[in-house]
């Protein structure tokens, strides 16, 4: 493992820790929009993590996976937001 790879891996670690923070918000809520937001952010983290992973492993095939995750993250957030609105008081 080169130094570069190790450093990138270190960044991945930071992202992973950051994910835990997201997960905490996801669990804490308290409102549904809070959770939705946490979900959205988590998706961004996943994208970042995979992107860093791509840098280490040169698996360009994963780039499209990033695309999919990004799209899903956005669509999911919109959907949840609308879902909340539809069911509002």
């Amino acid at each position: 493992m080169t130094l570069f790879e190790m450093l990138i891996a270190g960044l991945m670690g930071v992202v992973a820790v950051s994910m835990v923070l997201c997960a905490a918000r996801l669990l804490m809520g308290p409102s549904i929009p809070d959770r939705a937001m946490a979900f959205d952010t988590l998706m961004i983290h996943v994208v970042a993590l995979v992107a860093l992973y791509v840098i280490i492993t040169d698996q360009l095939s994963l780039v499209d996976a990033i695309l999919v995750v990004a799209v899903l993250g956005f669509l999911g957030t919109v959907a949840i937001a609308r879902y909340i609105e539809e069911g509002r008081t």
Partner: protein
Amino acid sequence: MIILLAIAIGSLFAGATYLVLRRSVVKLILGLIMLSHGVNLLIFTMGDGVRRGAPPLVDAQGQPPAGAADPLVQALILTAIVISFGFTAFVLALAYRSNQAVGSDDLDDLSTTDRL
């Protein structure tokens, strides 16, 4: 690595078992989902060595990368994932309908068909 996955699998099975033993239909379903996660990981672990960094994509000459992951388990899991998705959807619809018919989330209320 295997031991890591084994712990994850064990905890998934344990959690799933606990959840399906609850009275709430919601937890039951979540337990089933968790169970399928556990099984998928289990199959994954059964592959020809759990490998890092070499997905089963061969190059233009048809040569697999060194240490390529076991593609067969991946195909099997893919099948299993999709199947369990179908089942999850069905169980959800069923839970919804029986909740509608029985008017309760408590699984213990669903015992009339067994009564002697």
